[in-house]
């Protein structure tokens, strides 16, 4: 809609572009406090890892994989916090009555918000990697192996995780549901994997966090087929192609489902 005349002025620019920009900036403004807090928190958490590494005398290889596991868990926690209300805010808060009655396709609103969330959450993620790399270099005098590939997978994992949380958010009536689901998934996933393998001999390829384990395992050289945990349990690691397929699959399915549910949901 370019140059459409209205009663008192002109609508200039492209309507859908401005609408996407508005939803994008709105997401940024709403997420700014949580992004800032997590950017500080990841530095603190990295310092704790450094303290642990020096206390227990980690080798550089153990430091790298531990850092990867830390990144893997943090991504889930940050993503759940940033995206929990990405859709619920329109259905649980009175401001949604205004947003959803605007002449903008709902899928554009959701995609713009999700893109903003992914983009801005790259800030604490980058801070985490930067502090981890600097600390690793200070401790061991070398760069963690495949750290850039790990960062790349982290971004993909974060996008998939956020899409999944967004989908749960479109189905929930309150932000508490996607938030607790996301944090539970991020924190307890590893125990579920161990239990599945130990009791049933099942590789949890159908769990998104299983795919995300590549973030840590790719920093091991050579690439490991399994992890042995300190309690003696063994946990398989996904092959790189398998991890990428799990994450891309989750991203595509979650995004499609999120758009479908968000577009059809009634504001009661």
């Amino acid at each position, binding site marked *: 809609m370019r140059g459409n005349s209205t009663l008192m002025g002109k609508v*200039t620019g492209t309507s859908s572009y*401005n609408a996407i920009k508005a*939803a994008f900036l709105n997401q940024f403004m*709403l997420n700014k406090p949580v992004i800032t807090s997590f950017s500080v928190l990841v530095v603190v958490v990295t310092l704790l890892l450094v303290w642990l590494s020096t206390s227990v005398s980690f080798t550089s290889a153990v430091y790298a994989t531990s850092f990867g596991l830390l990144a893997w868990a943090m991504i889930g926690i940050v993503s759940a916090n940033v995206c929990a209300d990405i859709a619920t805010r329109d259905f649980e808060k*009175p401001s949604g*009555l205004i947003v959803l009655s605007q*002449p903008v396709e709902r899928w554009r609103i959701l995609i713009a918000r999700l893109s903003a969330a992914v983009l801005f959450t790259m800030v604490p993620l980058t801070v985490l990697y930067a502090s981890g790399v600097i600390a690793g270099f200070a401790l061991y005098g070398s760069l963690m192996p495949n750290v850039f590939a790990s960062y790349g997978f982290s971004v993909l994992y974060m996008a998939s995780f956020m899409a999944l949380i967004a989908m749960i958010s479109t189905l929930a009536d309150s932000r508490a549901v996607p938030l607790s689901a996301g944090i539970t998934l991020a924190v307890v996933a590893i125990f579920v994997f161990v239990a599945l393998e130990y009791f049933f001999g099942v590789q949890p390829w159908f769990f998104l966090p299983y795919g995300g384990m590549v973030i840590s395992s790719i920093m091991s050289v050579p690439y490991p087929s399994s992890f042995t945990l300190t309690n003696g349990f063994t946990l398989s690691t996904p092959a790189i192609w398998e991890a990428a397929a799990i994450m891309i699959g989750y991203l595509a399915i979650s995004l499609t489902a999120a758009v479908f549910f968000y577009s059809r949901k009634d504001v009661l």
Partner: protein
Amino acid sequence: MRTILELEAINLTKRFGDKVALDGISFRFKGPGVIGYLGPNGAGKTTTLKIFSHLLRPTSGKALINGIDIQKDYVKALRSVAAVVETPEPFPDLGVRDFLTMVGGMRGLDGKEIERRISRLQKELSLDDLDVRGKQLSKGNKQRAVLAAALIADAEILLLDEPTSGLDPAETRGLKDLIKKLKKTRLIFMSSHLLDEVIELCDKAVFINNGKIVLIDSVSNVTKKFGRGRKGAAGLEDAYMRLIKGI
């Protein structure tokens, strides 16, 4: 190019499980003016307004805005509409200016045009500090910020759900004067429980009860036919009691 200012419901039905909120209502309004939508709580007023603002999907029937079926092309249909339905509020963590800028952006306006309209609305609605966050606003200021968000769109059709609810007498007077000004060029469909407000502002009245339309007529005809000889708000009150309560 001006649009035609038309709002039409054809056998509009909305069910929530077993409950029938709207039972095949039909109406058609064309041209500028104010339509008052009257009925008791739970009659279906807000449900109707929500369907016309694409917040609810009808179970069956059609809601047409300027001839466009909102179910088929809600983006095009909603370009002509600004809605204040139920009790919306600005985002709690956004300043009023940021909130209005966001809504203006969603309406396809560019930055300069948004600024121009915000300045105009600040005067018209006596918006005080534009940098105050939504959660820090008083009830009346929230209501005015929401009205500003509706008016920034400069839409031809306004859907207002009890628009003066929560406003003090001075704010109510200001809003009524604004509605009187807007009704010359716009079609305003508003629900209200305040019969003196309906008498003062509305050209036509629609009575709804239990999800069914009871009567559509001009306000003057309604008071004349059902007002038991009384005029103004008193006559409309008599009409309301007869049509809705059956007494």
